[in-house]
């Protein structure tokens, strides 16, 4: 590709960061150059290279970007589009430290304030310790630190969480001592078809939010004639109020690796990726090390790479995630084609959520109990991840988390995160199952359960949700790009002047909501009005 670069040179430090990842550049050959397709196929390394540059320099300068582009054969304008898509990448110079303060719902309720010089951030997935921050220190020894730090508590009687706080997440031996890799061994004895049968028979539904039958997905990938097959573990847990996958990855990373090994074995995946959101540095490190250890011991016999997100909620959408791995903007693709036929790099792909993959171990071991992880946060006594059987009433789950703070009364529960909807106090007996929630027009979604008591300013909560979608819309399709902006504007106007023409604005919001739901490309736009609509109609936020 004839790439024109017109900016200045990269600094030695920036070049070292790129070369550190890609290796030293070959000296120019004046007689023979192999380029073309082989060169362009390196596009997928763009995000790792951008991270390398920014971790080292703190930002992505034009010189650095162009150097990366020349090395990877990517046009700079496209790469710039990628840099500016992801919230974490900074195309402007800044200091050696970046402080990200979560100002999303749970942390807002806990009194979070974005101090001067800090960056406000959408949910960091640390709702169990709100208010939370993430601090990045750039330089040769880059580090990212989540605060407050807290070790996970043991959960007696749990299944999916049974090793959390029990095993040493850095040690494969510790995992083996707790029954690790038994399921993989069994799976290899059973053979791929039998494994898929078991998964299908278990009726496991995907735990990422869409609740698609996992067995069916596995079968489709296994049957796909095109090669290679890819396994993609979606660990881009970004739904506000959701942090269960982080808890699993940080505390039981080998279980995820084992789940992936079984999935790859059963569906014939030659290569796997774990896409971990940038806000989870500890999870990323532990999963990476677990993969390395498991490979060394022969438990992982296919190629697996940990990929790091860069601050984009939309990349939790599977096709946006594929684009992100491919080094592109995280714009969702139109479906069909579905990932099982044409996913990552256009090949058959099995995208599974972390919790889904961990469930597979019990299925293979014959111990599947169809439990579900819920992330309880907000105004409860003990925020955290709780594992309950499907169908457990919401009220019981909240009780498990210690219930409300003393002296408070329940105002609402946001079920399923920003893409979910509000539940009123009189609906607390709803059984936590896909059917049970559907019956009251709600959704389990990603398992986020955010509790609000009578002290919560629900207007601010609704506005925060509206801002969240405006910030996180990828901008590709009109209904979502402009709709989320108009939604926020109208809501703000309604909340600021309760004497305005409220009814007309409610109509407008409802018109926008319907178009977003009907005509948006992906689930983000299709659900961006849910919580707000339910807040206005169910909770009557305007009227109170």
């Amino acid at each position, binding site marked *: 590709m004839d790439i024109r670069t017109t900016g200045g040179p990269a600094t030695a430090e920036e070049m070292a960061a790129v070369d550190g990842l890609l290796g030293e550049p070959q000296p120019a050959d*004046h*007689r023979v150059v192999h*380029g*073309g*397709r082989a060169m362009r196929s390196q596009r997928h390394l763009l995000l790792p290279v951008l991270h390398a540059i920014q971790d080292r320099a703190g930002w992505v300068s034009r010189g650095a970007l162009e150097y990366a582009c020349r090395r990877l054969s990517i046009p700079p304008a496209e790469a710039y589009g990628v840099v500016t898509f992801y919230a974490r990448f900074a195309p402007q110079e800044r200091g050696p430290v970046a402080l990200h303060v979560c100002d999303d719902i749970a942390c807002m309720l806990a009194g979070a304030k974005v101090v001067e010089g800090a960056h406000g951030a959408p949910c960091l997935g640390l709702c169990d310790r709100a208010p939370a921050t993430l601090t990045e220190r750039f330089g040769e020894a880059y580090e990212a630190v989540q605060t407050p730090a807290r070790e996970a508590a043991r959960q007696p009687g749990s299944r999916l969480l049974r090793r959390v706080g029990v095993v040493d997440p850095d040690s494969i031996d510790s995992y083996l001592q707790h029954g690790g890799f038994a399921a993989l061994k069994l799976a290899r004895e059973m053979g791929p078809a039998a494994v898929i049968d078991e998964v299908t028979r278990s009726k496991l539904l995907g735990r990422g939010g869409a609740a698609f039958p996992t067995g069916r997905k596995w079968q489709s990938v296994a049957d796909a004639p095109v090669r290679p097959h890819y396994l993609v573990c979606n660990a881009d847990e970004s739904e506000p109020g959701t942090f269960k996958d982080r808890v699993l990855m940080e505390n039981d990373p080998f279980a995820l690796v084992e789940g992936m090994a079984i999935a790859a074995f059963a569906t014939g995946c030659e290569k796997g990726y774990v896409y971990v959101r940038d806000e989870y540095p500890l999870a990323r490190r532990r999963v990476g090390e677990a993969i390395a250890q498991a490979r060394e011991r022969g438990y992982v016999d296919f190629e697996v790479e940990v990929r790091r997100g860069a601050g984009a909620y939309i990349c939790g959408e599977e096709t946006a995630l594929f684009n992100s791995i491919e080094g592109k903007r995280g714009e969702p693709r139109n479906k069909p084609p579905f990932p099982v036929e044409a996913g990552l790099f256009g090949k058959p792909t099995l995208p599974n959520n972390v919790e889904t993959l961990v469930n597979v171990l019990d299925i293979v071991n014959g111990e599947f109990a169809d439990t579900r992880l819920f992330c309880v946060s907000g105004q409860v006594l003990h925020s955290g991840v709780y594992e309950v059987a499907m169908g457990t009433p919401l009220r019981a789950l909240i009780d498990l988390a210690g219930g409300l703070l003393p002296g408070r009364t329940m105002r609402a529960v946001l079920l399923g995160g920003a893409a979910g909807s509000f539940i009123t106090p009189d609906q607390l007996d709803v059984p936590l199952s896909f059917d049970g929630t559907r019956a009251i027009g709600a959704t389990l979604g990603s398992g986020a359960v955010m509790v609000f008591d009578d002290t919560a300013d629900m207007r601010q909560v609704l506005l925060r949700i509206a801002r969240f979608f405006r910030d996180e819309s990828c901008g590709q399709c009109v209904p979502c790009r402009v709709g989320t902006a108009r939604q926020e504007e109208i809501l703000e106007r309604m909340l600021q002047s309760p004497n305005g023409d409220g009814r007309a604005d409610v109509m407008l919001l409802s018109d926008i909501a319907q178009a977003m739901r009907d005509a948006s490309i992906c689930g983000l736009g299709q659900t961006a009005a849910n919580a707000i609509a339910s807040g206005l109609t169910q909770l009557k936020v305007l009227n109170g």
Partner: protein
Amino acid sequence: MFGAGGGTSSYREAEETDLIVLWGSNARETHPIFFHHVLRGVRNGARLIAVDPRRTSSAEWADVWLGIDVGSDIALANAMARVIIYEGLADTNFIAHATTGYEDFARCVEAYTLERAEAETGVPASAIREVALAFGQAPKGMICWTLGITEHHNATDNVLALINLGLLTGKVGRYGCGLNPLRGQNNVQGGGDMGAIPTRLPGFQDLEIPQIHEKFSRAWGGADFPHQKGWHLSEMFEAMERGELRSLYIVGENPARSEADQGRAVRLLSGLDQLVVQDIFLTHTAELADVVLPAAAGWAESEGTVTNSERRVQRVRRALEPPAGARDDVDIICDLAARLGSDFGRPTAEQVWDECRSLSPMHAGMAYRRLEELAGIQWPCPDESHPGTQFLHARLWKDPVEGPLAPFHAVEHDPPVDRLTEEFPIRLTTGRRLDSFNTGVQTNEYTSPLRRGEALVISPEDGARLGIEDGECVRASSRRGSVDVHVRFDHSMRPGLAFMTLHFPDQVATNVLTIDATDPKSGTAEFKASAIRIDRIPASVPSI
């Protein structure tokens, strides 16, 4: 090519072939819209191979680029042929069925071992072998070339060497295969087709065949005109030198700037008894003329047809009124004929075309009406029900072959005439840039943001060796003369190679340096290979 002077394929075929060789062509800049078709082919999976001394913007798209020494094309082609024969990749059935002269050819290429080819071309033997195998193994493939092949003292042999490769592998006469010279001006193809070649009459019909001569003579009212071929351009200048050619009528050419060894060209033109120039501009050539006939611009101020590189005859139309005094070429010629005592009448462009169609079988079916309906027609088009011909020489695959067999031509490597010596150690090659055209008469009238003026482009290594700075004004000298020119460093150049264009003759008279060593058959001069030296200009000499 084997009796038909045109590219054998359609552009569309480049999109659906397996392998494209761009040989001595920087189509990315000189034929940008043809390159779109090439890129579509590349996106569809075709391999692209570029053979060019410079790593041009076209070459940057290639899977393999071979940076050969200027003028070593035959050595490369013959060595490739030898590999193809030795590897059993020659299409022996096709050779036996449709060609002649294979034995002589095979004997000739036997001497072109990879070792010898490496020595002659400068390209490693392994890369030559790789490209030969790729070409030999591709089910479909095409070779496209431009002036990198034809602006040599042995231009015809160069072309024949490429044709040999096509014949050897049966890559002609089939869809997606072919041998395609990309024409440099909008009607180079049409000019030749219309008989603006010393040996031809309209319809590429051989002047020296009596029946053809008689056909035209009869159609033209028994007119008597020469029975033997005339001079081509270089022969005309030789005839001027000898004093045989004393009077010259030039239509739409600017030899005072476009000829190699410009000093000689101007001297000879100035020494004529009579020079008539018909042009849309008062060019430098026109300034030397005794009579200037201002003409309307063919493409925008008059009616007619032109023929492109895929043999497509298309209409040009009058969109503008010509400036006062400028007249249509047809009108001028008819008036001139009247003054010379021959009444051509006052034909319209369409009437002239219909007369041409009545005499040229390959254009017979191309009524104006059909040219409009079909958006151009590719010759041959023998009658008004014929759709035109997508690719030539399908006849070679018929059984038996229709028409003459296709001949191999044993051709030998013959290095450029202007030898590199200690005194003139640098190989200067000339070419064109994207935003300019030939001597710049037309393109210098619009403001291109890309334009940076003329420069002597060299490798940074040569710059360092010669102790010159990027941008410095230097003196470039050949055995014929010197020009002062600013240098520009470019990483696409290798040490020992320099590049200039002829776009800005008033600023830098590049053709002062070039050699008029001419191919005896085609009459083209060796613009692509001069030997020069580069000297720093002493500080006392003011820089231009």
